[in-house]
């Protein structure tokens, strides 16, 4: 089966180093859906940590390096809402040269967070859950408020065979990650996280789903520290086509 859809995976630094399984699952999932997937060589990080801390000259240098890697891509798929936001929302503004700015705008237009690509490009919401049972969903701030995307992940989770989606109280409240915020003000970051995790545990969900590696690192780190039975998972880790790979 082939759809003629091509997608380049922007794996992101956290995805590459800490969550390679997420990338692997995305590649296999998209291929099963008839999407041709490639992984342009030379990727590092989108530059968001530099940008958010105010290192804009440096962030622009990273962006300028990243742009040509995806020059031939039909679509770019990103497993994190925040990195997708960086590319879509901030890359064009960081480019001072008109030609590069035009290129950044074109890249922004064809970049999708995973759930967006599935729902809006591949046009598929029906999958089978790799982990049956109750799931709850955390809205990542950059995906929900930055990219205005709250519906695509929910459409998939609602249709997910074998899973029951329960809304998380305070689903749109920050998990306390915030990049360097988590280590600049660890006490505050942790207090925010504790509130989030209390809400998560109150849902009785088996899995906590998010579409951002940063949030998963924060919430997953907290769940593991408190030896919680709730499993933090990236959306990609739940999705299977026709009941298996």
């Amino acid at each position, binding site marked *: 089966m082939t759809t003629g859809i091509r997608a380049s995976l922007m794996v992101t630094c956290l995805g590459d180093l800490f969550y390679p399984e997420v990338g692997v699952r995305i590649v*296999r999932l998209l291929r099963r859906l008839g999407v041709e997937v490639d*992984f342009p060589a030379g*990727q590092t990080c989108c530059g968001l940590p530099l940008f958010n801390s105010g*290192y804009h000259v440096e962030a622009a240098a*990273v962006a300028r390096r990243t742009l040509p890697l995806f020059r031939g891509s039909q679509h770019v798929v990103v497993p994190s809402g925040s990195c997708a936001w960086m590319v879509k929302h901030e890359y064009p503004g960081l480019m001072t040269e008109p030609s590069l700015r035009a290129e950044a705008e074109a890249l922004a237009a064809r970049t999708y967070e995973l759930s967006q690509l599935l729902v809006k490009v591949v046009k598929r919401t029906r999958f089978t859950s790799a982990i049956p049972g109750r799931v709850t969903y955390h809205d990542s701030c950059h995906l929900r408020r930055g990219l205005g995307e709250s519906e695509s992940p929910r459409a998939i989770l609602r249709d997910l065979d074998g899973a029951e989606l329960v809304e998380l109280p305070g689903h*749109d409240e920050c998990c306390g990650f915030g990049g360097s915020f*988590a280590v600049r*003000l660890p*006490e505050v970051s942790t207090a925010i996280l504790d509130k989030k995790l209390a809400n998560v545990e109150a849902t009785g969900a088996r899995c906590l789903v998010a579409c951002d590696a940063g949030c998963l690192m924060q919430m997953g*780190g907290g769940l593991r520290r408190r030896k919680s039975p709730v499993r933090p998972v990236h959306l990609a880790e739940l999705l299977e086509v026709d009941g298996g790979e």
Partner: protein
Amino acid sequence: MSELSTPFRERAAHALDDRFLQQALTIATTKFIGLRREAFDAFPDGDALRDRAREIKEATLQRLDQHLEQLIDNVEGLGGRVHYADTAEDARRIILDIARRTGARLAVKSKSMATEEIELNEALLHAGVTPVETDLGEYIIQLAHERPSHIIAPAIHKTKGQVAELFARELGREVAADPEELTRIARAELRQKFLDADLGITGANFAVASTGTVVLVTNEGNGRMVTSLPRVHVAVMGVEKVVPSMSDLVVFLAILAKSATGQKLSSYTTLVQGPRRAGELEGPDEFHLVLLDNGRVRQIAGQLREALSCLRCGACLNVCPVYRQIGGHAYGYTYPGPIGILLTAMLHGGAAVKDLAHASSLCGACAEACPVRIDIPRMLIELRKDNVERAVAPGPERVVFKALARLLTMPTLYRLAAPVGRLLQRPFVRDGGIRRLPLFFGEWTRSRDLPAVASRTFSERWAELERER
């Protein structure tokens, strides 16, 4: 200005340990968030009016000088006096001159952040004028010798039990922790003050240029007493609060109370048109409007321009995950919360918010709640950027980030990150996770596990995935 000598991180940590503060903040902010949501859900025009409000603010800033001139003409036409204060010190001097000339000894005040900004109460006391706060929240914190910890709910950090204790100490008798009873006590104490005061001091939520009307939005009725009973009324207003016309005012009134307290309108909207005129029964003999610049006008062409649209509704504080955890005092300046960081930078310069600019996870809840859609996270990033470029940011941080930038622009070097990480993490990894790390990394692991660098990164697995095709 509580303990600015203590680093912000410590002030915040201290607030997190305050059980009463935590309890009070959770109850109040949760209530405010729910009320605001309900108010806008029941008001389908809300979004369009928010856009309209922002347009009016932008258009007004374009010609602020003209609107202010018109306002001054109209207030003076009504028999009022208008004073322009470049700085907080100028504003204090103007008000003290009025107090001295009119022989004032007792001033009643309606809630005003502008007078907090210029630290007026201290100046009045020093000049022999006793200021009495008449808004219940302000009254409470004046008794407690504290500063407001929220823009619209100054005593938000106190539980009703703490307020009862405070009143009991003041009155020398038992007081029940019952809000109605507490309000009755304050009311009885304040009534005589209203009658005795020679000076009434208020802020202003708006001033209408085309009519010379100063507008106060309140809930307790104390604002009306302050503006009508004393011989002299002084209103202190930031210059950016001028609105062109009454029809513009209506737009702001429709969204302000909804954003602030979730009310359709506040209980009292007081329109003040100069002093008492011949034949009128109520009102002061003298009316003064003090227009306060204090760093605002400079920002019309500055990077904080958007913050000049702020209505001071406090919605961004209520939804801010950081404010909700630490409250207002930990910020250390007059204006707390996300907008407060921007206003602090406006009043005290960008270097003053070196740490505060990082008191945000950039989650964007503030921008979403703001009735005039101020992009607060964007400006926080701009302030961080300035502090990086002016080398205000700490040296070690700059070294780390610049090194990171080098690494991220050199893929060949970056490829070594995983093997080096795996080597360094070896002593710390248990079951694929890390519980404790030394040095700076320990800030993460003090409360959270860290995932270990994968035994094979995605990049290292790609060749294999290619063969699967």
